[in-house]
């Protein structure tokens, strides 16, 4: 057992061990729990950082052992894995900081942080999974560990949301399992392989492979919130803000999108998927989801619900990017995995701050919030402009790259989708910004809490500011080697074989 | 065709009669009697069939002896249980009690209700 085998395991163990310790700690040991949590998060960030450097230098990390006859448990750190792992490790640290502030003085924190750590461990597992089976293992673990977070408040509404969530995700999981089992019968173990496991497809497999592809996408599409499988996402926003942030930015929806990426690139291979005519169908669904999510967002008066529909729309950018099937378009899709995460988590942090500090949930209550909470509002504004796609922010990089890719692929209609979607984004974000900055405060704040001279608790304020900084940097330094875009180009040259 | 085969066939008939009673009768003691009838049928089949084929065979006879002891043990246990059940509930059959259970109490009532 060498360091290369152990590093992914250690990275996984940081969050798992943290979860176990937190579950074992008595409820009232808040400081100790926070310490454990933050230590684990920092440690994990370091380990993942180490692996990112190693992968950049061309090292391979991984471990594999047989689980069930015919099936291996494989952890492997490749460049694509590190894209997701890095995102999840970085955002875990920030979300932990934020949650400590957000849940101050609320009950059941032991349970919350325990499952939170489990959830992050599953996310890392999803990133590092080296075959479809291992991926599924962590994918289902994610479902289970997020349920207690969604129903955390224990209200009737939360319980109902939890039920919707679990019905959707477990049914999706069952469909996915069916797809994976069928593929296993067709070809044995299913390692993720650059260029695709089915790159040299036997002609008699065409029909079954097409069917299985549809099944797999249907299974993964539930978590990726592809229309019409998105119903759980807007409902699940009753969860506490850090949970929503995590669900929307890294954990659940990204797990679905990441799974689709793995299936398209490394199980089927872009060429095979294209040859079977699967990509155009997927592209159409993704485009529809983008537009549908944006339109629905327009009609929401609750801030978090509007953000939720915005997620439905934005995640499909990733999928649309894949379907462009060219190096540039794919880069646009993949980089959005990170960009959307950073932007969306900023927005949810800010929404949580408004709710927690001033008691504001609805958009029409936000009048004048900018003067009361300038730091939060600046972060919110940056993220919103990023979503719209304003240069030089992260979202602009995504859309520009994708647009270029669409031209290269000869799919001009995608550009139209991008433009319309950007206009819709502007239509649902700009009114919010107008209220925040230019609206006159009419009523007193609903439940204002004071933190001395600061606008809100430092635990709550800093995470959104940091993520806002990220999204600015990701846009400005997009051509640097370790920027998300730079890393994605590394992935494409190394692993996608375009 | 030997007379022993006739024993086996008679055993089959006993089994059927016992089965009929076992399914249809709800009085527990009579049900138990039906079970014993069935048991005797099985033992007859066991000894008769073997004897018909290869002459007197001590193995099935020994098996039947064991079987009888087991059947007696089971019957005795059943009688004890049935007597005690009758003593406690005054019933001689297993008909379902109330088909319509009372509406479920809320969490507090459920916890504070005394044990039955």
């Amino acid at each position, binding site marked *: 057992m060498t360091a290369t085998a152990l590093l992914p395991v250690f990275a996984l163990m940081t969050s798992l061990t943290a979860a176990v310790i937190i579950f074992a700690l008595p409820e009232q040991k808040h400081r100790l729990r926070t310490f454990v949590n933050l230590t684990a998060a920092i440690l994990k960030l370091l380990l993942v950082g180490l692996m990112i450097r190693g992968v950049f230098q061309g090292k391979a990390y991984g471990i594999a052992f047989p689980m069930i006859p015919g099936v291996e448990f494989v952890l492997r750190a490749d460049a694509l894995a590190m894209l997701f792992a890095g995102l999840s490790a970085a955002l875990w640290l920030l979300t932990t900081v934020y949650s400590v502030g957000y849940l101050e003085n609320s009950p059941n924190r032991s349970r919350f942080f325990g499952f939170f750590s489990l959830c992050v461990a599953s996310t890392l597992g999803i990133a590092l999974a080296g075959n479809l089976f291992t991926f599924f293992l962590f994918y289902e673990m994610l479902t289970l560990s997020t349920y207690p977070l969604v129903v955390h408040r224990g209200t009737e509404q939360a319980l109902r949301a939890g039920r919707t969530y679990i019905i959707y995700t477990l049914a999706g999981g069952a469909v996915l399992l069916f797809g994976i089992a069928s593929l296993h019968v067709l070809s044995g173990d299913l390692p993720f392989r650059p260029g695709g496991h089915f790159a040299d497809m036997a002609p008699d497999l065409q029909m079954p492979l097409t069917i299985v592809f549809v099944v797999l996408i249907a299974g993964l599409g539930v978590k990726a919130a592809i229309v019409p499988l998105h119903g759980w996402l807007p409902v699940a926003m009753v969860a506490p803000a850090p949970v929503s942030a995590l669900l929307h930015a890294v954990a659940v929806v990204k797990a679905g999108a990441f799974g689709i990426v793995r299936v398209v690139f490394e199980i089927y291979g872009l060429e095979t998927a294209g040859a079977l005519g699967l990509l155009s169908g997927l592209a159409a669904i993704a485009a529809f989801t983008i537009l549908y999510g944006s339109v629905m967002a327009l009609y929401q008066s609750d801030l978090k619900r509007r953000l939720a529909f915005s997620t439905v729309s934005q995640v499909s950018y990733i999928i649309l990017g894949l379907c462009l099937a060219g190096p540039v378009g794919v880069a646009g899709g993949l980089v959005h995995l990170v960009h959307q995460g950073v932007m969306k988590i900023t927005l949810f942090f800010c929404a949580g701050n408004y709710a927690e500090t001033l008691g504001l949930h609805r958009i029409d209550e936000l009048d004048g919030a900018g003067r009361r909470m300038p730091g939060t509002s600046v972060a919110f504004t940056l993220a919103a402009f990023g979503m719209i796609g304003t240069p030089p922010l992260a979202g602009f990089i995504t859309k520009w790259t994708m647009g270029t890719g669409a031209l290269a692929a000869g799919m001009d209609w995608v550009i139209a989708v991008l433009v319309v979607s950007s206009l819709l984004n502007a239509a649902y974000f700009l009114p919010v910004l107008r209220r925040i900055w230019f609206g006159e405060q009419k009523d007193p704040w609903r439940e204002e809490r004071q933190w001395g001279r600061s606008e809100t608790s430092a635990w709550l304020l800093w995470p959104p500011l940091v993520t806002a900084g990220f999204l600015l940097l990701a846009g400005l330094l997009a051509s640097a080697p370790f920027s998300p875009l730079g890393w994605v180009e590394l992935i494409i040259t190394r692993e996608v074989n375009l | 065709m030997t007379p022993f085969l006739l024993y086996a066939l008679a055993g089959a008939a006993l089994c059927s*009669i016992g089965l*009929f009673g076992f399914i249809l009768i709800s009085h527990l003691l009579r049900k138990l009697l039906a079970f014993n009838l069935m048991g005797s049928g099985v033992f007859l089949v066991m000894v008769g069939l073997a004897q018909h084929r290869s002459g007197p065979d001590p193995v099935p006879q020994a098996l039947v*002896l*064991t079987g009888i002891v087991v059947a007696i*043990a089971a019957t005795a*246990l059943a009688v*004890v249980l049935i*007597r005690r059940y009758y003593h406690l509930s005054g019933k001689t059959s297993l008909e379902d009690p109330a088909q319509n259970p009372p509406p479920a109490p809320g969490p507090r009532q459920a916890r504070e209700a005394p044990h039955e």
Partner: protein
Amino acid sequence: MTRVLAILTVTAVCFAFLSGLVYSIWQIGATTTPVDLPALLAGNLDDSGVENPVTAVLLNFRSYDTLLEIGVLVIAGIAGISVAKTSSLEDPELRTSDELLYALQRWLVPLTLLLAGYLLWAGSDRPGGAFQAGAVLAASGVLMRLGGIPMDFLRPGLMLRLGLSLGFSVFLLVAVASALSGSRFLAYPPEMARTLIVAIETVLTLSIAMVLLALFVSAPINNAEEPEEGGS
């Protein structure tokens, strides 16, 4: 109406069962067995230590079955006394006291005891054996019980439990001793086979009688009050 329907259905089921069984017996009766067990048994009878083949099967060739069978009987006994009244198995109210019955029993009980002893002894070379003897012994106990002779030894104390388990324990001890002495579990040394079998039969007789009697007299009353988990 439903009753008639039920009877008809059950009748149909029983007829189907009967015809299947009869067909099966008929078919089997027309063939010959691939293994001739009686001949094999006759060939090995001399090594078993007893002359009666049934007893040989019960207590030597298939002694494991018999050991477990006594176990089943003990279980029934345990389950029986576990639901019995705690102080005494005997219910004085159920005892009759009739002079004539009592007098007759003074004649009868010794006779039945003798009969039981004979059956036990006969078991080694002709039909008979522990179970038959035990049953007769138990029957005489039942008569005593009905005739009003007090049987205070039947309280669920140590004595009763000892009695219940006596035959089983001795049987088991022999089995273990045979295993510890180097041969296999339940393998009797040939020269001692007969002695051991007779010893086992004797204690078994006592135990079987005890179990049957305990089950007969255990009154269905106790003050056990278990809160039921399955209730509400």
